[in-house]
């Protein structure tokens, strides 16, 4: 069995998620080769074949061209699996590769129970196994779901890939930096986060008061930030901060995978949710089944005593 792992390079840097791809291939029991549109000066530690296309020529986001690079490596390696991380790069590129090859794709794999590809659905309330039906399969793995074992080692055997260069259909203009941070959640020992379940902007203050009473910081889920109830620097999750506090209190947060991705390293998780089945309960040490607006002020009063 052979897997072709698609490494990623973003904003001038090889991404560490490369090693999660390797960990996944290890669990699959697959022999692996790698593809990278990146820099020859920043190669992953990997003992195997690495197909390298120079980012100076191909650009960091040029999906039409990157697709060709991957297809070229597929032709050379004839892999059973083509594996991406389910990231802004992977979810954009993987379906293009699958469509070009007319093969199946399994998105955001979180586990391999009995060798089956397990994914989540319905906001993580259910899990599903997906069975590939094509000779070859494109897989994206959830970032953080497959941890690398030990220090990566080895030096890849590099083969430079050069594909004909008709301009892609998308022109990359540039990056826009994340908003300036007014808080560093990555260092906070206690984080109390507000989710959509708090209901309205004014209620976020109530959550912030609990954070203050506990000597911690305010965090937030994505919809709270998008609604303008809290600044982006407070967002926890895939497209926010990855945090590892001693205590994480999730108030009115359902526990969507993209949120969990940012906080599942917390030592102790308390969730306050009126829905006993909310998926946050899956990772919470304590789930308080209650209305946040009743429970949180009471807890603040207790802690401020």
């Amino acid at each position, binding site marked *: 069995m052979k897997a072709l792992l698609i490494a990623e390079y973003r904003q001038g840097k090889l991404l560490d998620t490369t090693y999660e791809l390797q960990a996944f291939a290890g669990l699959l029991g697959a022999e692996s080769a790698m593809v990278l549109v990146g820099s020859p000066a920043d190669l992953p530690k990997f003992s195997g074949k690495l197909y390298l296309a120079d980012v100076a020529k191909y650009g960091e986001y040029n999906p039409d061209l990157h697709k060709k690079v991957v297809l070229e490596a597929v032709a050379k390696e004839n892999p059973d699996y083509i594996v991406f991380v389910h990231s802004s790069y992977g979810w954009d590129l993987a379906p293009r590769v699958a469509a070009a090859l*007319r093969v199946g794709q399994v*998105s955001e794999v979180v586990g391999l129970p009995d060798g089956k590809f397990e994914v989540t659905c319905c*906001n993580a309330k259910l899990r*599903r196994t997906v069975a590939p*039906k094509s000779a070859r399969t494109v897989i994206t793995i959830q970032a953080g779901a497959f941890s690398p074992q030990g220090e990566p080692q080895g030096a890849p055997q590099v083969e430079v890939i050069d594909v004909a260069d008709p301009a892609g259909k998308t022109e990359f203009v540039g990056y826009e930096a994340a908003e300036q941070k007014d808080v560093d959640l990555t260092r906070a020992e206690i984080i109390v986060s507000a989710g959509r379940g708090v209901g309205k902007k004014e209620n976020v203050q109530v959550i912030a008061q609990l954070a203050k009473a506990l000597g911690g910081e305010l965090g937030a889920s*994505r919809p709270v930030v998008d609604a303008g109830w809290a600044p982006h620097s407070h967002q926890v999750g895939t497209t*926010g901060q990855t945090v590892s506090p001693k205590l994480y209190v999730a108030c009115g947060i359902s526990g969507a995978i993209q949120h969990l991705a940012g906080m599942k390293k917390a030592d102790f998780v308390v969730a306050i949710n009126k829905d006993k089945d909310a998926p946050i309960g*899956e990772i919470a040490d304590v789930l308080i089944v*209650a209305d946040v607006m009743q429970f949180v002020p009471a807890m603040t009063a207790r*802690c401020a005593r």
Partner: protein
Amino acid sequence: MKILVCIKQVPDMESRFKLNSEGTWYDEADLAFRMNEYDEYAVEQAVQLKERLAGEPEITVLSLGPDRVVEALKKALAMGADRAVHVKDDKYYQKDPWQVASVIAGHAAGQGYDLVFTGMQSQDRGSAQVGVTVAELLGFGCATTLVGFAYEAGVITAKRELEGGSKGVVKLKLPALVTCQLGLNTPRYPTLPNIMKAKKKEILVQPVSELLKEAEVTGTGGMYPPAKRGGGIVIEGEVNDQLDKLMGILKEKTTVLRAA
């Protein structure tokens, strides 16, 4: 300009899910359905573009699914789409993303669409494949996970959301497909007059068999609720009792409250 918006109807995610008898999908009985959140951003963006171009573009909204999806189509019409296509498929959940995308591309081929909007993923299946695959099948330029959209003289300037809060700015020429993400806009609520107007708009019904030409490339093995992580404590009851228990646990199991 001809615009296509693809929408899906999904259950309210706060529902209690039960499995169907085959154990391959959720049982639809007792669920309340609504338009997929990400698709609402797609409809809103299309309508905003139409407004900015003084009403010139014609917006078609398409949904694949059983009869209930007509409700989602009507909402999109009331938000400002001009016409709807209902690809009728009672067994929609047995189609894999490749088949769904080829059905949509099958409808779109020959219709002369310049711009297609989809959500970045559905809230129930979450494959994030359908939009991009439609673009590939139609040979359209494509950008995913938009949190910013501007259009000028045949060129889209899109902001893609990346990890950690930074954004990637890209340009693409029509014909193009973009997939929409939370944060792109705030979807409008249909007003009563617009709901009334929508009643007169055309909803074309087409059986999926007329459009489906592809076999599935992935299938569902089984479906099940996640295993609960061992040790998690659930506390129900009256707030003060819940608090007593929680404070006790926090004092015992963590170091954060010892000082308090």
